[in-house]
C-alpha cells in the first residue's frame, strides 16, 4: 500500500465524517445497541465500607465504584475462609443482568411448552414489561383458580438484612394481593422442630445452648453426634459472629475428652483429636437405644431425675427392655444394626454416665426417614443420664449451628419488615399467613398430587392445586430431594417466577426471571450473631446495583403498585425510613434497659456498628431454671415435664411415629433388610459453601476434583471397584445419576460415600428428567418422602446407591464460569 501523507489522510477522514465511529453498530442497515457514549463517566469516591454477610462482618474496599477486596471485621474471632467468595458472587458472570422471560411463555402464554423449562431459551424484557406480566398473571391465576393456586412459600437461605428479607417481602406483597399457599417449617430441622414442642415444649432447635464458657468449665465429656461444628459454624442466619470457635478452642485447650459419632471422620473430630465412632448412617436410634438399655441393665440411669422431670419413662421402659415386642434393645441388638461393637456401645453408656456429659446432636440426625425419633431418643437418653439442666450436662442441638452456645449479649431485639401474617410464637418463618399451608419440604409432592390428603402434626389437609409459584431467596433445585421428580413436578406449573441475583439452577427453570441485587448493593441493617446478638450492624450499600438489578424491596413495591397496593406495601416509607424505624425500635428498648446506643444518625454515619456487653449471658445453663424448680418453671408440654411418652402423639395414631421414641427401619439404609444398593450416600454440609451458595466461586477450585464435586470413598470400597484417587466416577441409584470426582480416604467408614449437598445441578439435557448431572448434585440421589406423618420433614440424608469409575463420553464441566475447555 502506498504511503499516504498525514495531511491527505486526515483530510479524507474528515470528509468521510468517521469521527463518530464506534458509537453504535448501526452501519450495516440493522439496529444495534449503542456501545460507546461521548463523555467520560463521573468518578465515584473510593473508600472502605463495613457491611455483613452470613459469613461474618467485613470491610469492603471500593475503588472506582468497584469492590476490589474484602477483609474480615477486626472483631471477628474466627473469620471464615468462605468470605472470599463474596467478591465472586457480586461479580459472577452468572449474575442475572436484566428481566427475562422464557420464550414459549412470552409468546404463547402461561403453561406453554413446559418441557422447555430448564432449556435456557429466554427473551430479554424491560422492567415495565416484567412487572406488568407478573401482576397480570397473579391476578389471572387468583381469578381463574382461586386463592390456593399461587405458591409463595418460598424457602431458602436468603441474604441477611431486616428490610430486604425477600421472603417476608414476597408474602407481604401476596397478602396485599389477596391470598396464597404458604409453607411452614424449614429444611434444616423440619422433623425435630415439630416433635420437640411435644417433648420439651419449645421449638428447641434454635434456642440458646448452655453457653461455651460453662461447657469449658464443667463438661467432662463432649459428644458431637452427627455434628461438625468446625465446618458448619462458619455461617449464620444473621451475620456470623463465630463465637463458637472461641468455645471450641478453649475446650480443646483444656483437654476435655471429645467423642464424634459420625460415619465420616469430621473436621471437628480432627480438631479435637477426638474418639471416632462410625455407625452405619441412619441407625443412630438403634445405637442410642443400645446405650439406654445398657444404662438400665447396669443401673446407671438416674431414676430420680426421670421421676421428677420427665413423663412416660415407665411406658418407654417396656419397649426398651423388649417386654412389648420381645426384642430387648440391648447393645448386642444395636450392634447388629449400627455396626458399632456391643462392647463399644456399653463403654459409651458407662462413659456418659460417669462423666458430666453434653450430648451435642446435629440437625443431620433428623433429616432422615423417621428423623423425629433421633432427637426424641437423644433427649430421652440425656434424661436417663439425669444431667439436663446441670452446668455442662444434658443435650444441645445448636452447638454446630450459627454458633449456638456463644454467650448472648445484653442487646435489644432488632425488628424487621413483616409479611402481614400472624407469626407463631418461637419461629418467625412459621407464619399463619396464606389460604393454605403445606410443610415446606412437601412442595414437590404438592405439585405432583393436587387434592391428595396429607397428614401433618395431628391434622389432615389436602394439597392445593397450585398453578403459579414465586421463589425468592432460595434455590430449591439444590436443596430439595430427588431432583428428577422435582423437574417433572415443576413442569406442571403454568408460571414459575424466580427472583435472584444469579442464574441458579432454579432460575434456569423459571418462566420469568427478575434480577435482584446482592445485599452489597443496597442498604440494610442486621444483628451480629444468631445467639450472641453481640452487635447491630449497618449493612451499608457497598456499590451501586450492577446491570439492571433492583433491590427486593423495590421489586415488590413495583409489583404491589401495579396491583394497586403500592402505598399499603411501602407505608410511604423509603429504604432508609424502614431501616431507621427498626433501629429506633431497638433504641427505645435499649433506653428502657439502660443499654448504651447512639442515635440513628450517629450510628449510621459513624462507625456503623454498635456493640453490646455480655454479662449474665456468660453463665446461662439450658434448662437450669427448670431443673431448679420444675413446678415454678414448667416446660411447655402438657405435663410440664420432658415427655418421653406423648399422649398427644399417641392420639394421632400414626404408624410411623409412635407415642415414644423407637427404632423404625428406614425405607433404605446401609445394610437394610430390603435395601438394593450397597453404599450409603452421605450428603453432609460442605466446608467451603453455604449449601449451594458460593458453588459458583473460586472457592470451588480448592475442593473440586477433575472439575466435579468430590466423592469421598473409603479405600477398601474404592479398591473393590477399581477406583483411584482423582478418577471421575458415576454415582447412581434408581432415582438418578451424577458425576463426581473420587477422593479415596480412610476418613470415611466402609460402605459410605460422601457427596456434599449444595453442588449445583448441572443437567446434561436441561429440563429432561433422568438426565445425567454433570457436576455432582447429591440431591439427584436422595429420597423425596416425608420423615413421617408427624412432621413431614425432608429426608436429605436418606440415600443409597452405587459408584463406578466413569467410562462414558467426555462431559467436560466448567461450573458457572466456564473455564477453558468447558463444553
Amino acid at each position: 500500500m502506498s504511503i499516504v501523507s498525514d495531511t491527505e489522510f486526515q483530510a479524507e477522514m474528515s470528509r468521510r465524517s468517521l469521527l463518530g465511529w464506534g458509537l453504535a453498530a448501526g452501519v450495516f442497515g440493522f439496529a444495534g445497541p449503542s456501545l460507546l457514549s461521548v463523555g467520560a463517566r463521573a468518578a465515584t469516591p473510593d473508600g472502605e465500607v463495613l457491611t455483613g454477610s452470613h459469613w461474618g462482618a467485613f470491610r469492603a474496599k471500593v475503588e472506582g465504584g468497584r469492590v476490589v477486596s474484602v477483609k474480615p471485621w477486626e472483631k471477628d474471632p474466627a473469620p471464615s475462609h468462605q468470605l472470599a467468595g463474596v467478591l465472586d458472587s457480586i461479580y459472577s458472570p452468572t449474575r442475572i443482568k436484566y428481566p427475562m422471560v422464557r420464550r414459549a411463555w412470552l409468546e404463547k402464554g402461561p403453561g406453554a411448552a413446559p418441557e422447555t423449562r430448564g432449556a435456557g431459551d429466554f427473551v430479554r424484557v424491560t422492567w415495565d414489561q416484567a412487572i406488568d406480566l407478573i401482576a397480570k398473571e397473579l391476578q389471572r391465576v387468583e381469578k381463574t383458580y382461586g386463592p390456593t393456586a399461587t405458591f409463595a412459600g418460598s424457602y431458602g437461605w436468603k441474604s441477611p438484612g431486616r428490610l430486604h428479607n425477600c421472603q417476608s417481602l414476597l408474602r407481604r406483597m401476596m397478602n396485599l394481593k389477596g391470598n396464597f399457599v404458604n409453607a411452614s417449617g424449614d429444611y434444616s430441622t423440619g422433623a425435630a422442630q415439630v416433635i420437640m414442642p411435644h417433648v420439651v415444649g419449645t421449638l428447641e432447635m434454635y434456642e440458646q445452648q448452655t453457653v461455651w464458657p460453662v461447657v469449658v468449665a464443667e463438661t467432662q465429656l463432649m459428644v458431637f453426634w452427627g455434628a461438625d461444628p468446625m465446618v458448619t459454624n462458619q455461617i449464620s442466619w444473621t451475620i456470623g459472629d463465630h463465637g463458637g470457635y472461641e468455645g471450641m478452642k478453649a475446650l480443646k485447650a483444656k483437654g476435655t475428652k471429645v467423642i464424634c459419632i459420625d460415619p465420616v471422620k469430621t473436621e471437628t473430630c480432627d480438631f479435637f483429636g477426638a474418639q471416632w465412632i462410625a455407625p452405619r448412617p441412619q441407625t443412630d436410634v438403634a445405637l442410642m437405644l443400645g446405650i439406654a438399655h445398657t444404662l438400665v441393665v447396669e443401673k446407671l440411669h438416674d431414676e430420680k431425675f426421670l421421676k421428677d422431670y420427665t413423663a412416660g419413662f415407665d411406658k418407654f421402659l417396656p419397649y426398651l427392655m423388649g417386654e412389648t415386642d420381645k426384642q430387648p434393645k440391648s447393645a448386642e441388638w444395636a450392634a447388629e444394626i449400627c455396626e458399632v461393637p456391643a462392647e463399644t456401645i456399653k463403654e459409651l453408656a458407662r462413659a456418659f454416665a460417669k462423666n458430666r456429659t453434653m450430648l451435642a446432636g446435629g440437625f443431620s440426625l433428623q433429616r432422615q426417614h423417621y428423623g423425629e425419633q433421633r432427637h426424641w431418643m437423644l433427649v430421652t437418653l440425656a434424661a436417663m443420664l439425669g444431667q439436663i439442666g446441670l452446668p455442662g450436662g444434658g443435650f444441645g442441638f445448636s452447638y454446630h449451628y450459627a454458633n449456638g452456645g456463644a454467650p448472648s449479649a445484653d442487646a435489644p431485639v432488632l425488628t424487621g419488615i413483616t409479611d402481614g401474617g400472624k407469626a407463631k410464637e418461637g419461629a418467625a418463618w412459621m407464619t399463619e399467613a396464606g389460604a393454605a399451608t403445606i410443610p415446606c419440604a412437601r412442595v414437590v409432592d404438592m405439585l405432583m398430587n393436587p387434592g391428595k390428603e396429607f397428614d401433618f402434626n395431628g391434622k389432615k389437609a389436602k394439597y392445593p392445586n397450585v398453578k403459579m409459584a414465586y421463589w425468592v431467596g432460595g434455590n430449591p433445585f439444590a436443596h430439595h430431594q430427588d431432583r428428577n421428580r422435582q423437574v417433572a413436578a415443576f413442569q406442571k406449573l403454568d408460571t414459575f417466577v424466580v427472583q435472584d441475583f444469579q442464574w441458579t439452577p432454579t432460575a434456569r427453570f423459571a418462566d420469568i426471571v427478575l434480577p435482584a441485587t446482592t445485599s452489597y448493593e443496597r442498604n440494610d441493617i442486621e444483628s451480629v450473631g444468631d445467639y450472641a446478638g453481640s452487635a447491630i450492624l449497618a449493612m451499608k450499600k457497598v456499590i451501586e446495583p450492577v446491570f439492571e438489578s433492583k433491590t427486593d424491596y423495590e421489586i415488590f413495591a413495583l409489583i404491589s403498585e401495579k396491583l394497586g397496593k403500592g402505598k399499603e406495601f411501602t407505608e410511604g416509607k423509603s429504604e432508609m425510613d424502614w431501616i431507621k424505624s427498626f433501629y429506633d425500635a431497638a433504641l427505645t428498648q435499649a433506653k428502657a434497659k439502660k443499654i448504651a446506643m447512639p442515635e440513628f444518625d450517629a450510628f449510621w454515619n459513624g462507625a456503623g456498628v454498635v456493640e453490646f456487653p455480655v454479662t449474665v449471658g456468660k453463665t446461662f445453663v439450658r434448662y437450669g431454671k427448670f431443673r431448679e424448680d420444675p413446678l415454678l418453671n414448667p416446660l411447655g408440654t402438657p405435663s410440664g415435664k420432658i415427655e418421653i411418652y406423648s399422649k398427644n402423639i399417641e392420639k394421632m395414631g400414626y404408624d410411623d411415629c409412635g407415642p415414644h421414641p423407637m427404632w423404625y427401619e428406614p425405607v433404605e439404609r446401609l445394610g437394610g433388610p430390603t435395601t438394593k444398593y450397597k453404599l450409603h450416600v452421605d450428603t453432609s454440609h460442605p466446608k467451603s459453601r453455604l449449601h449451594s451458595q458460593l458453588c459458583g466461586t473460586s472457592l470451588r477450585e480448592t475442593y473440586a476434583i477433575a472439575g466435579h464435586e468430590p466423592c469421598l470413598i473409603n479405600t477398601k470400597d474404592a479398591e473393590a471397584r477399581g477406583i483411584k484417587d482423582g478418577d471421575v466416577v458415576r454415582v447412581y441409584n434408581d432415582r438418578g445419576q451424577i458425576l463426581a470426582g473420587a477422593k479415596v480416604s480412610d476418613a470415611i467408614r466402609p460402605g459410605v460415600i460422601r457427596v456434599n449437598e449444595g453442588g449445583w445441578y448441572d443437567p446434561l439435557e436441561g429440563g429432561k428428567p433422568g438426565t445425567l448431572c454433570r457436576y455432582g448434585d447429591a440431591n439427584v440421589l436422595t429420597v423425596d418422602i416425608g420423615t413421617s406423618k408427624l412432621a413431614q420433614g425432608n429426608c436429605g440424608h436418606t440415600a443409597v446407591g452405587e459408584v463406578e469409575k466413569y467410562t462414558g463420553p467426555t462431559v467436560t464441566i466448567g461450573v458457572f464460569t466456564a473455564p477453558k475447555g468447558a463444553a
Partner: protein
Amino acid sequence: MTDLSSVRARPAATPAALLLDATEDAASLLLLLAGLFAAPPEEGTFLSLRRGAAADLLTRLADGATLAAPIAAFRATIETPEDEATLARRLAPVFGLLFLGLGGPSTVAPYESVHRCGGRMWQAPTGEMERLLAAHDLSAALEREPADHLSIETAFLARLVAIGHPDRHALARRLGAWVPTFADDLAHADGTGVFAAAARLLVAAIEHASDASTPRNEPRKA
C-alpha cells in the same frame, strides 16, 4: 450514524481514499463483530450478513489472505437453509446460554476481567478500560455493562482504527491478549459454531485492523 452502503458508493480515487477504504472496512468489521457479541442477533442482522451491507463488507475483506479463511468459516455457519428470522430465533437462546450467564456451566463470559482475573467481572481491566475511554472523552454505553465487555473494547478499537489514532495498536494488543482465549472457550462451548466462528474472525480482525490503518511509517505492533 454512518451507513456503509452509502460510503461504498463513493469513488475511491486517491491513495488516501484507498487507504481509508481499507481502514474503514477494517473498522467496519470490528464494529460488526462488536455488535454480534453485544446482544442476541436479530433477523435484520442476518439479512445484512447474508445479502446486505455486512455481506458486501465480508466479501471485500475475504479477498485478503488474512481474513479469507475465518470469513469463509463464519459465513458457512450462517448460510443455513433456514430463513433469517428462524436463524435468529435459534441463536437467541444460545446467546443467552453462552454470554448472559444463564447457561451456568456453559457460560463464556465476554469480559476481559473474567478471562484475566480469576473468573470475576469488574476487576482491574474494567477500571483500565474506563480510564482509556475517558482519555478519549468516551464511556461505555452498553447498558450498565462494564467497560471491559468485549463489544465495548472492540467498538473502541474500531473507532481508533477508523480515525487512525496511535492508541489503536495498544488496544489491539490488549484485545489480542485475551480474545484468543475467549475464542478457544467458545470453540468448546458453542454447539452452533456461529459465535465460535465469529470469535475466530474477531481474533483475525483485530490483527488485521492493527495493520490495515497505518497511513505513515509509524511503529507497528511490538
